[in-house]
């Protein structure tokens, strides 16, 4: 990998060295269930995310990615180890859209704005802007059950952005989207990330997507989840998902992922 680090990454590294990462995960273990029949899900995860960094998490189904995101969001407690998010409670976009069925699409976003302290007169316009951003202009008044699967995911993404936190956690945000819509949103999220200097921790199953978006790709192993390997992605932005650079790296990572999965037998 070429050492063509961008300036922003330099700054990030400095920040990391200065001891103030945006997310610091140290020696985190997590298991579910009672002592005897516990499932050990995460095992000694240590990971720092620098402010303004875009990290994607890859791993087999069931390896513990969502669990890790929940821990970082403060929704669950690690069995041992510590997690620090100095910038305050992160925004989280759940794997299952988690939109409130008693509110319309627009009102779901407005609720996030409201709890984020946005004054009432601005909320409506801001909500419509965010809907426009996820290509759902005109769906403001739709109920959750009137949206298609992909539309729900996009509303959830808009709501996560509305939370306005500097750390953004996203759990497979584009899984239910067609390639074209996804491409558009890739561009948008990269733009927002750069413009607002967000720190993003992004879970995906799509290796190309991971490479397309991230500054760093982290591969988790399964049972228990450990950090198996990391890649610094030094390809220049804006990248294209079809580009050869992305494809080459994706093949390398996929091979590694395949190896990880094979090592743990059938799961």
């Amino acid at each position: 990998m070429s050492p063509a680090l961008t300036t922003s990454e330099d700054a990030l590294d400095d920040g990391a060295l200065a001891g103030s990462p945006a997310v610091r995960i140290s020696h985190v273990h997590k298991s579910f269930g009672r002592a005897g029949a516990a499932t050990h899900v995460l095992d000694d995860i240590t990971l720092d995310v620098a402010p303004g960094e875009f990290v994607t998490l890859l791993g087999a189904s069931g390896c513990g990615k969502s669990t890790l995101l929940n821990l970082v969001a403060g929704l669950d407690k690690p069995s041992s180890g510590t997690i620090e998010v100095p910038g305050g409670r992160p925004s989280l976009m759940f794997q299952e859209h988690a939109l409130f069925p008693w509110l319309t699409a627009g009102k779901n976003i407005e609720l996030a704005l409201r709890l984020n302290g946005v004054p009432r007169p601005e909320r409506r316009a801001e909500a419509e802007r965010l809907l426009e951003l996820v290509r759902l202009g005109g769906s403001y008044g739709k109920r959750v059950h009137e949206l298609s699967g992909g539309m729900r995911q996009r509303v959830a993404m808009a709501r996560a952005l509305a939370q306005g936190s500097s750390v953004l956690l996203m759990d497979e945000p584009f899984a239910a989207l067609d390639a074209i819509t996804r491409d558009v949103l890739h561009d948008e999220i990269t733009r927002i990330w750069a413009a607002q200097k967000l720190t993003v921790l992004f879970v995906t199953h799509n290796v190309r997507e991971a490479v397309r978006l991230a500054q760093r790709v982290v591969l988790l192993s399964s049972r228990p989840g450990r950090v198996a390997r990391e890649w610094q992605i030094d390809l220049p932005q804006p990248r294209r998902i079809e580009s050869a650079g992305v494809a080459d790296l994706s093949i390398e990572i996929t091979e590694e992922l395949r190896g990880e999965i094979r090592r743990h037998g059938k799961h």
Partner: protein
Amino acid sequence: MASTDTAPSVHEAQVPDSASVEAGLDALEAVQTQGTPLSEVLRTKALPPLIALLLVLALWQGAFALELTSSYKLPSPGMVWSSLVDLWQAGTLFSIVWTSVWRGVAGFLAAVAIGTPIGLLVARVKPVRTAVGPILAGLQSLPSVAWVPAAVIWLGINNSMMYAVILLGAVPSVANGLVSGIDQVPPLFLRAGRTLGATGLANARHILLPGALPGYLAGLKQGWAFSWRSLMAAELVAASPDLGLGLGRYLENQRESADMSGVLLGIILILIVGMAIDLLLFAPIERRVLRNRGLLTTNR
């Protein structure tokens, strides 16, 4: 199967014979939803209750005509009707109904105002739940009549006694309804609320209460039933000009004078009030809540 049982006829043909009764019912249910004309609305909404009413009246009159029992035990619909006419002409009908309804509704609203915060606390704060939860359940199963002596001794015979009895009957019910509503809110919504930064009152207002609304509404309906029943019990204790003549008292008076058609009229009036509150107050709210959440896809 309102929302799911609208298979094209090709599928319908595969329903096994053993379930043909159910299929028949299903077919009855599968009402066209788009652009229903008024006649259709009347047919599906007004007809069934009307038929039910006529059926009951016919059975009643039939039992009377067959002289299954003496007329003082089972008066005819006509006799009850003339009791009603008497009450109408005496000019007391509305005041009787209104006295009770007003008191019941006021007591119920107070019970909601008190029961809701209690329910929130019990549902969300664990020590309160272990301490207060069973007490609520116990209170709920304590008959209102049991409270009446205590309430009378402490408060005297007046409206505050009535309200105390109503509250003791309805508050636990409202609170319990909210608790079980909150227990059923999917944890995903609670977590989503948390990541949005909803804590304390904001959490209650924006996540817990709307999330628990369907279950809470069910609790409110039961709470209304308890209010109304407790009120009837309280009205029995004493009659005084200050308290006015309510439905419970009216029923009791008819009972004392062994006027069976009056008793039946009282029962019917109480029934009608209960039904009216359900139809005019709870049913529309419930329908709206369910529809907004996509829990109700056809119109009822």
